[in-house]
């Protein structure tokens, strides 16, 4: 239950009470605070900066999302041309790259500053949160791009009249699958191709005897029609199947790249540690070698000393005699 208004009322009563009793609250500080510009915390300023950039990108993407995705929307007429879409793509990619770059730098800068463990934990989690936000916005963008690529490929495949080879080159990865709309598209395309076939038939008829088409020719043309129709249907079936398989592969690829990127950092760290470790081992070997040598040398000196002393003793003994 919100008791903020009650609290504010309490503050007012206490203030009036203080005035009545003549207790002066520290007013001078208040004035100073109004005049003085609060020292900006560099950390928070940068963090907010990066955040606002990502937000701008997100708003932009969401705003243009409908237009971007309207492919067969002839009614409204405010399509985007492909160049505009490309522009949006490259622009968004660029902004995302700069943002991630800034974020990385930000993180490294924070690592270098020495602060208390609490503040460090706070800084790390702020950076993590911004990271997650950036990833979410990137996902929005990549979904848009994937939808667009998928549509383009659909159209390309269906405009071909010949049978597609079984070993067609695997197209670019895409992730989303909207089956219903695709079926509508294929029906549209089928009608277009059918009309194209009709036209070609008519042309052929005109080019041949410009007379009536005999019943045999009619039948032949009809059967050809039916055959072509069946072939086209089977083509669409195969296209659908291939598409679904490629979708799976694309999903896998995405997952793999994600995992590989995650592991990259760890692998870098491990390789550095390993290099350091080999260096240390080498140094250790050398030092052990030196130690052994010095030990041997010491022994030699000690033996020599003892030998000399014993000979001198013998000599003195002989001399005194």
């Amino acid at each position, binding site marked *: 239950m*919100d*008791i903020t208004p*009650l609290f504010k009322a309490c*503050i007012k009563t206490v203030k009036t009470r*203080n005035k009545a009793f003549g207790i002066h609250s520290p007013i001078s500080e208040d004035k100073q605070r109004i005049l003085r510009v609060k020292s900006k915390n560099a950390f928070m300023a940068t963090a907010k900066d990066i955040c606002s950039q990502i937000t701008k990108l*997100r708003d932009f993407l969401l705003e243009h999302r409908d237009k971007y995705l309207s492919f067969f929307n002839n009614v409204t007429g405010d399509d985007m041309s492909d160049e505009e879409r490309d522009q949006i793509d490259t622009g968004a990619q660029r902004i995302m790259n700069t943002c991630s770059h800034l974020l990385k730098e930000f993180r490294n800068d924070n690592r270098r500053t020495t602060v208390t463990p*609490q*503040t460090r934990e706070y800084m790390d989690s702020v950076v993590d949160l911004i990271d997650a*936000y950036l990833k979410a916005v990137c996902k929005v963008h990549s979904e848009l791009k994937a939808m667009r690529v998928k549509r383009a490929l659909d159209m390309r495949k269906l405009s071909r009249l010949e049978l597609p080879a079984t070993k067609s080159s695997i197209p670019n990865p895409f992730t989303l699958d909207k089956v219903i709309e695709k079926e509508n598209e294929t029906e549209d395309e089928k009608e277009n191709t059918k009309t194209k076939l009709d036209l070609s038939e008519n042309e052929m008829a005109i080019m041949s005897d410009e007379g009536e088409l005999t019943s045999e020719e009619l039948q032949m043309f009809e059967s050809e029609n039916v055959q072509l129709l069946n072939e086209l249907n089977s083509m669409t079936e195969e296209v659908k199947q291939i598409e679904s398989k490629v979708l799976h592969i694309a999903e896998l690829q995405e*997952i793999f790249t994600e995992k590989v990127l995650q592991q990259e950092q760890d692998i870098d760290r491990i390789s550095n540690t390993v290099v350091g470790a080999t260096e240390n081992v080498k140094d250790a070997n050398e030092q052990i070698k030196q130690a052994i040598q010095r030990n041997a040398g010491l022994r030699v000196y000690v033996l020599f000393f003892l030998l000399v002393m014993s000979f001198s003793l013998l000599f003195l003994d002989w001399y005194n005699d």
Partner: protein
Amino acid sequence: MSTLRERQLNALKQMLNLNQPLTKNIANEPTWKILIYDRVGQDIISPLVSVKDLRELGVTLHLQLHSDRDSIPEVPAVYFCSPSDENLDRICQDLDNGIYDQYHLNFISPITRHKLEDLAASAIQSNSAVNIHKVFDQYLNFICLEDDLFIMKHQQSDSLSYYAINKADTKDTEMEVIMDNIVESLFSVFVTMGNVPFIRSTKGNAAEMVAKKLDKKLRENLWDARNNLFHGNTGQGGAFSFTRPMLILLDRNIDMATPLHHTWTYQALAHDVLDLSLNRAVVPENTNATVPIQKSNTRICDLDSKDPLWSEHKGSPFPTVAEAIQEDLDKYRSSEAEVKKLKSSMGLDAESDLALSMVSDNTQRLTNAVNSLPQLMEKKRLIDMHTTIATAILNAIKSRRLDSFFELEEKIMSKSTAVETKAVMDLITDPSAGTPEDKMRLFIIYYLCTSQFTDDEYEKFEGALVAANCDVKALSYMKRWKGFTKMSNQYEGGGTKTVSMFSKLVSQGSSFVMEGVKNLVVKKHKLPVSRIVESALSGSESAAELTWLDPRAARTDSAGRARSARQQPPTDAVVFLVGGGNYIEYHNLIDFAKQQAANGIPRKLIYGATTLPNGSQFLKQLSLLGEEIQ
């Protein structure tokens, strides 16, 4: 209709969202905040949200109120604490030091006008009145452990224990304070649920006092037109519930045997053996049996509702749980083997021609495998955890022979077969069976449930118990208590039957070697608490022993009461035990609700208590009470 737990969670989330309603947009910009709580707040938050959830909500740091905290500028600080004097002092200190820039103060229970003025005074003193953005009263003074189980306090809960309520030298003022706390907590529960209950309670003890106070408080609040908390309550996002539940207030004294009873369900065993508290169990792991000095590390396991095995089996008897863990382990192993097989089969296909069908099949399988890998890892971790817990419990059962205690106690409590004193005597004098506390518990249950008990036998047993190193102070208290209340035929049904367990377990090659542990299957039975609840909800005549209070009714005369008593009794109920509850009663109540649902009457039952002591803790309180008598 969301559960109590969901509502509390929603309230917390909204609080963390700086008291603005939660919106669901794509990729929300992160707002950073700092959460500061005191011990009460910590207990409330920890069963509901994990650290990961806090991070997702934008909480970058979570700190204790009474710790040294650094100054972190430009970020709102959300305080969640109870309005006690020391907390307020610390908050004023923070305001003086100007540690944070924005303060959002949320008090767990309502703050008095006087304290609010003190806070305002110190805020003006430190010139930070402008920084305090919001002050809220969150009526959340209870800890919700499960969807339908709540307790009042966890840390510093000694002031609310059975001992504190029943000890001989409790002053009136202390009693008043305790009662006020309980009423406060119940009030928050009902504000969170959003409806006003009918109140029924047993007569003539602490429960009745609580009932009267709660009735008064609810009535005051309902007739206060300005601050009516129950008006709509749509801010919580919950639907207006048209059925008012019945609050049944019971005192611990109606049934003293159940808290001491040895347990057999998974959750209750974890509570008894492993000190399950706030959904967290501490499991000792013995490492290195070869080293003569056994280092036992403890491992902390979180048991919450996201774990499917736990939520399904927490109320089932222990052998069923062991079987379920084994099944899960087998399933996990088979899926692991599939993934490994995939690796080898994929290797073969890479060289041969990419025939379309082969590729599709393998990609399908590969996709499924990769997608399921994180789930498999999670499952493995859970199975590991449950295996550790179950092994620890099993070890305890075997070393203390808890199964024989349980069997004997069930026989005593059900009175289905005549129990010879010899059997009880045997178990008590047996040095290998159980700790002294177990034996005391068994004897107290035996003493309470048999109607005639000669002084002779009593002396004999006392001697045997002393010989077994038991602490017999609790007995004097129980003697006096038995004299006060007449317990007769409190338990019906019950009893156990042993099922030959070797067949199924051995065929599965169980890793739980449960030989020597009897596989006891508990027959359906009703504890006194469930029976009282049943009679109250069905509106039968025996329920007339309970007082009836309705905070919404304008008149409290007996005519109005009788009229409303004849109306349709409500279907939902909240059962609250003053003096301590336990998991056995909770599971029993849930079984009762399920049974009623199977008979066509859907019921929602919520179980609450002041604290949840396990058997040994309750015994300690009893012995403290016994000490005072002497």
